[in-house]
């Protein structure tokens, strides 16, 4: 997507045909289960057992509605979300949204490198070696312009997350308890649980995904007359995200929580795979985490640099030279260097960094959602394809809940909780 040239090609010869069929929804859904997601779901499962699983249901509903809005905006306007925000919300609003997006995505990229560091430590590789090497490889991969192939390969490997499904089932979870926790959702009013809830929502419906989704739709050249296929693609993508999240939480809730294991580093989380992989659990977990981390570490800095340049009118794209697109390369390289640098700090708390960057996502999300809802209800932009009332209700509802949660999180410390 980051080359402006797209050519219809004769795909029909090789493996690519299968991969080409993967729609934007499915790809976005898979990218969503990154290091931040795995960590957040694991921590939530370990801390609260099945107690937080219910949050996945409202998240699924909002995720579906939001992704559909992005797809529709992309198809109707042919413009990226950052273009639309800049053109309609004016410079100041755009500036603050993108400062937020830049910060939260530096956080997210840092999380990916935390995933690289954590997974490679399980294999006995020091983070002082694994992180700079991974960062350099990612940088080369993208600048050399072969990242699209890499994207597809990673997508196949990300199927390794399905080990959680098997492991969760083998851990003989208390299905009855899960069901009752689901029916009677509850939340403790303290800083920790609210933090976890915001992080869960923030990682499931990450703000950068909205930008990514919209550009993918444009890149694929989708049309309104094939909209039902797009809808299927979105539904499948969202369900993949939520199903994986569900089983990670079930696996951790069944194995870690009853034993009172708190996740302090990656290898604690690996115990959730023990029912399936036995003594190999750590290796299997590390492999899955590593793939997911590198995959998202490839996409995130690139996407962020691209959207910022799009909004501010700088040249962008990996097919441009350094001189043509200086801002783009500086941003891209800067995000990688800063993120990898944070992880290299001795004794950096990897798990805390992961959770808090997801919280930042959750706080930024309502701002992005508000601008999306305003854009999509603008008849000048969307013509006859503006939102239906139920979409607006769900959208505004999500904004309201997230704002309340964020405010509560802010005032909690003053209440002494």
């Amino acid at each position: 997507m980051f080359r402006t040239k797209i050519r219809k090609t004769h795909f029909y010869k090789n493996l690519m045909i299968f991969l080409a069929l993967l729609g934007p929804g499915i790809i976005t859904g898979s990218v969503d289960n990154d290091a931040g997601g795995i960590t957040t779901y694991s921590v939530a499962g370990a801390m609260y057992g099945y107690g937080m699983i219910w949050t996945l249901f409202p998240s699924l509903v909002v995720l579906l509605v939001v992704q559909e809005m992005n797809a529709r905006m992309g198809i109707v306007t042919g413009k990226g979300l950052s273009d639309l925000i800049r053109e309609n919300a004016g410079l100041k609003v755009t500036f603050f949204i993108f400062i937020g997006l830049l910060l939260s995505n530096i956080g997210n990229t840092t999380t990916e490198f935390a995933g690289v560091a954590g997974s490679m430590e399980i294999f006995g590789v020091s983070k002082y070696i694994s992180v700079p090497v991974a960062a350099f490889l990612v940088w080369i991969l993208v600048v050399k312009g072969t990242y699209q192939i890499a994207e597809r390969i990673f997508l196949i490997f990300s199927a390794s997350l399905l080990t959680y499904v098997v492991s969760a089932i083998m851990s003989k979870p208390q299905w009855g308890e899960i069901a009752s926790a689901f029916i009677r959702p509850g939340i403790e009013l303290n800083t920790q649980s609210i933090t976890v809830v915001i992080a869960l929502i923030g990682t499931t419906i990450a703000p950068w995904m909205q930008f990514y989704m919209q550009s993918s739709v444009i890149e694929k050249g989708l049309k309104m007359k094939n909209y039902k296929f797009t809808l299927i693609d979105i539904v499948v993508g969202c369900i993949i995200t939520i199903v994986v999240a569900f089983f990670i939480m079930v696996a951790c809730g069944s194995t870690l929580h009853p034993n009172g294991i708190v996740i302090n580093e990656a290898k604690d989380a690996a115990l959730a795979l023990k029912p399936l992989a036995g003594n190999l659990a750590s290796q299997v977990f590390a492999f899955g985490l590593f793939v997911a981390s590198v995959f998202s570490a490839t996409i995130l800095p690139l996407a962020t640099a691209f959207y910022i340049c799009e909004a501010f009118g700088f040249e962008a794209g990996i097919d441009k030279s350094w001189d043509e697109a200086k801002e783009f390369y500086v941003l891209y390289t800067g995000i990688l260097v800063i993120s990898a640098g944070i992880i290299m700090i001795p004794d950096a708390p990897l798990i805390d960094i992961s959770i808090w960057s997801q919280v930042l996502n959750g706080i930024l999300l309502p701002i992005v959602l508000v601008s999306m809802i305003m854009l999509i209800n603008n008849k000048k932009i969307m013509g006859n394809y503006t939102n239906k009332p139920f979409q607006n209700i769900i959208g505004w509802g999500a904004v309201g809940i997230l704002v309340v949660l964020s405010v509560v999180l802010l005032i909690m410390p003053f209440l002494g909780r």
Partner: protein
Amino acid sequence: MTSLTTFYLSGIIGKEVFGADGDAIGVIRDLLISTAPSGQNDPNQQLVLGIKLKIKKETRLYSFSTFRVVKAREMINVTCSDLKELDNDEAANGLLLVENMLDKQIVDLNGRKLVRVNDVRLATLPTGTFAVAVDIGIEGLLRRLGIPNPLKRVLSFFRIKIPAKFILWDDVQAIDFSNLNIKLSKSYAKLHTLHPSDLADILEDLGKKSSTSVFSALDEEKAADVLEEMEMQTQIHIVESLPVNKAADVLEKMPADEVADILDEIEDDKAEMLLKEMDSESSQEVRDLLEYPDNSAGGLMTTDVLSFKSELTVDDVIKELRNKKPEPSELYALFVTEKNDELVGTFDLRDLVVAQPEKTVSQIMKTVPVFLYDYQKIDDIAETISKYNLLAVPVVDKDNLLQGMVVVDDVVEDLMNKRRTYKR
């Protein structure tokens, strides 16, 4: 009063206008610029015609002629001696700076690319106030955010200079006229100076609405050239969004093989409608080409070929070429055919140029030409072309009748597409 005052659009939007008696009249919302057809040195070009004022709760366009912008001690003051509403005729010839330019994408005609407008620089001369340049730099961004000077001082302390980037008004073309009721072909006049392939790149990067409206404003010849240079996705979008008769007119001007490639990708019903609308000669050629599978020589060939009878003299051929003035790619190879179009030989421009005028074609042609069958797979066509150092290979049917030729340009493009499949 000094004869020249320069100011920024961002510096006056939202400011109050004061009357002759010093009372506040209203708040400035927008400026209207003349887009008078960019005739050479038209003095009224880019003149500020109107000003949008919000007075109490109403926003209206007023004539700018009674307004004056004065800079005193770095402060900008706008005064007004008399309020005259602008009539619709005058307003229809203009462009609103905030609504149509600010934060929008415009075409940088020198850089041949899309840029985003951060600010507009204006100047007041004795003859009026004019838009001078468009600010696309980071400095403009910071000015809009209202934090330029303190930050500049901090940065200059670290010896970092914030780059200012301006493009002169003559070198920009606004794109978004969607809300105005003006004649588009005139508004986009400046785009005609761009090369079709640059214009195609720009249209690809525009949103759907804008790409259609810019494309519709081009004349048919230019439109055909531009459409030919576009990526498939944009081609499809453009062809599907234009009215059928307009699309057909443009397609008629394009080489049949390119048209066939596009029609192959759009819906059958729509393709049929377009073929019916096109003149019968062009549409028949396209129909013939559509019969061939994608990866056959027939699918890749062009039907625009020049063939001659073997008994003609070199002089006759040259005269005929001068008459016809064919496209450059048609001259890559020249063919010799019998009465029924049977291919008997090939020759090229060099053969013509070095031969005596009275020699006949049969004397200069190569009699055993390399050729392809129309249903032949094209997998190794690149090797063939490179092995025999050809610019074009003739394509014949099973009875050896000339159908067209595959030119090296299309082979290269095909190769690049294949490579891109693996790259992407």
